[in-house]
């Protein structure tokens, strides 16, 4: 059979082009960096105006509880959970603590009844839950109040005076609650960033604990700038860069004498290190720092670098 030269040439070229395409386009796909997603909901302008208009007859929105501290380390598997996430809180409410319940699961469908029963039982509970200050109860209760509003039936074993949703069923006795409240003076317990967070980290491999805000850092920088005494007309400022390692207690004071962690041997460096040390010592207490970000500012290295001031 006569071989058609043009056909052969055409096939060969096709194979060449396709082969090259296969080879060159089979490289690893580009990887995109994981970005922490932020929950976003689209709202049109008239929806927005309707929402914000409000309804005169609407019931009072139960404000979300502001949690200031956690009483105990709750075994949350999700390091930063939304306060309003029901599942987390549900499981977190430790069964052992709530065990003594007398609370059958079927309490849920019949909210008003167990309330009366549970009221007296609330008393022994705070006693049992020794490590947990009773002050928690109103907060825990408020949390449970939230859940109670959801129609989804959940296996719950909680005592909860459910008030606003069902005002007719029972009268909410404030004095009984008052009896449960912590009579101690309010104390400020320190919290760690991992326990509380108001923003969800959805899908990202790293959670974000509370980070120091820009204004916090700026205020701290401003305080140290004001106290750092620099000599006029300093020569060779690159020799005078000083790093100071500071550790702070929760009340924003130095936990230990600051250490100079940079190195230098000249007398000028020694004088510069002294001046930086003086600034750090005089800056106490650093009251511009927030309690929530304690993890971030409890251990810092401050670098005093005079080069920008003496650019010739």
């Amino acid at each position, binding site marked *: 059979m006569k071989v058609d030269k043009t056909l052969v040439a055409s096939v060969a070229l096709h194979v060449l082009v396709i082969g090259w395409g296969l080879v060159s386009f089979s490289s690893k796909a580009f990887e995109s960096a994981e970005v922490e997603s932020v929950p976003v909901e689209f709202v049109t302008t008239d929806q927005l105006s309707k929402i914000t208009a409000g309804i005169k007859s609407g019931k009072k929105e139960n404000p979300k509880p502001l949690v200031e501290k956690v009483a105990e380390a709750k075994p949350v598997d999700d*390091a930063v959970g939304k306060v309003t996430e029901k599942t987390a809180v549900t499981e977190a409410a430790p069964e052992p603590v709530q065990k003594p319940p007398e609370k059958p699961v079927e309490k849920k469908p019949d909210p008003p009844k167990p309330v009366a029963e549970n009221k007296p039982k609330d008393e022994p509970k705070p006693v049992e839950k020794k490590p947990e200050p009773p002050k928690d109860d109103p907060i825990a209760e408020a949390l449970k109040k939230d859940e109670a509003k959801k129609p989804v039936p959940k296996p719950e074993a909680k005592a909860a005076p459910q008030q606003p949703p069902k005002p007719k069923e029972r009268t909410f006795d404030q004095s009984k609650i008052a009896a449960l409240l912590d009579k101690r003076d309010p104390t400020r317990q320190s919290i760690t*960033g*991992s326990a509380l967070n108001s923003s969800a980290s959805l899908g990202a*491999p*790293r*959670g974000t*604990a509370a980070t*120091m805000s820009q204004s916090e*850092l700026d205020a*701290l*920088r401003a305080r*140290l*700038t*004001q*106290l*750092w*005494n*620099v*000599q*006029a*007309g300093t*020569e060779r400022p690159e020799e005078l860069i000083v790093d100071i390692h500071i550790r702070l207690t929760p009340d924003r004071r130095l936990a230990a*004498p600051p250490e100079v962690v940079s190195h230098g041997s*000249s*007398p*000028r*460096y*020694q*004088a*510069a290190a*002294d*001046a930086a*040390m*003086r*600034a750090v*010592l*005089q800056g106490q207490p650093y009251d511009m720092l927030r309690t929530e970000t304690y*993890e*971030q*500012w409890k*251990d*810092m*290295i*401050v*670098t*005093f*670098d*005079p*080069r*920008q*001031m003496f650019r*010739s």
Partner: protein
Amino acid sequence: MPVTPFPLSPLRLTRRDALIGGAASLLLPSLASAQTRLQITEGNVAPIPIAIPNFVAGTPADAEVGVGVTQVITNNLQRSGLFAPIDQAAYIEKIVNIDAAPQFQNWKTINAQALVTGRMTRQGDGRLKAEFRLWDVATAQQLTGQQYFTSPEYWRRIAHIISDQVYERLTGEKGYFDSRVVFVDETGAKERRVKRLALMDQDGANVRYMTRGADLVLTPRFSPSTQEITYMEFGQGDPRVYLLNIETGQREIVGNFPGMSFSPRFSPDGQRVIMSLQQGGNSNLFVMDLRSKSTTRLTDTPAIDTSPCYAPDGTRLCFESDRGGKPQIYVMPAAGGPAQRISFGEGTYSTPVWSPRGDYIAFTKQGGGQFSIGIMKPDGSGERILTSGFHNEGPTFAPNGRVLMFFRDPGGSGGPSLFTVDISGRNELRVPTPGFASDPAWSPLLS
């Protein structure tokens, strides 16, 4: 048409999935544990607030010298521009025993960052014992402390030495307070000024006249040994260069050269004097060895080469020359050789002086009707004018190379006065002298 659902292919590779799942579970979310780092790139340029209570009197007779020493130290630190002594009226605590730690809270309250305490005690053998301690108020630590023994009449020198110690510890720079200045004291009417060589402490105290004023004297300079001054005097005939021993008062002529000799200066090792000799219409640089009295010519140009000054390491020297047309500053090797011009600005440059630290050359610049004192690096770069006016001239460096002294003649019927300025251009101050004064030269540190 009925749609046939395609069955999903059964899950294969279950073990691999389990592996991946297991590995993924090991990736526990870890919070970034990096230490927070903060950069402070701006500070407060301000003098250090320092408290200097009166020195304690070791014996009742020492009260006066205690107060005197305190005043000298306070004055020195204040004039340096780097310290702000706090008024004694504001002090809360009275120091009575310098061996006990002070109540630092009292000093923190008045915003003192450093505290100097001291004691003067007359000894049995007539000597004076001076002790001092320098404290850091913020860290509540003693930074330095010394004691000195001296003859009672040298109490001012002790105060200067203590000032230097405080200055050095808190700024890291060498001090300059324990030094002297030689200058030309001028008295009388402008047409018939009487000019005498005078010597004083850098703060203006202890003025001594070295010559009687019969002849005109110019350009006095210290030798590195601080005990000799070289200067020019217009005696009988031509001006000559003289050597004067401060302690003995003896004078000798440096060489016997034909013609006029000008602007003498010592070499850093004190063994040679460099000067300019005028012969014919031009002047050239000559070096004379003081022991062998042999002279060496360094320049040989038809121009006027004058005002030479050695670098502190003695390897180079700077001088003024108009070989390029107008007076400019040149640098050349100390043994002689090609000279390199380093001044290139508008105007004429004269009276160059090399800083004892070796990092700057100060000069007088004249241009646009103004006389300015400025500094530049030895390669000619970084030229900076420190003060301008009519008529500033003759800069001389303090021993630490940080402060310049010069004289200013306002013109008119008045006379010149001495001024100091920091090399950053700040803190220009007048130096108190008994009368008019010009041509200052600063000695090295006495200690």
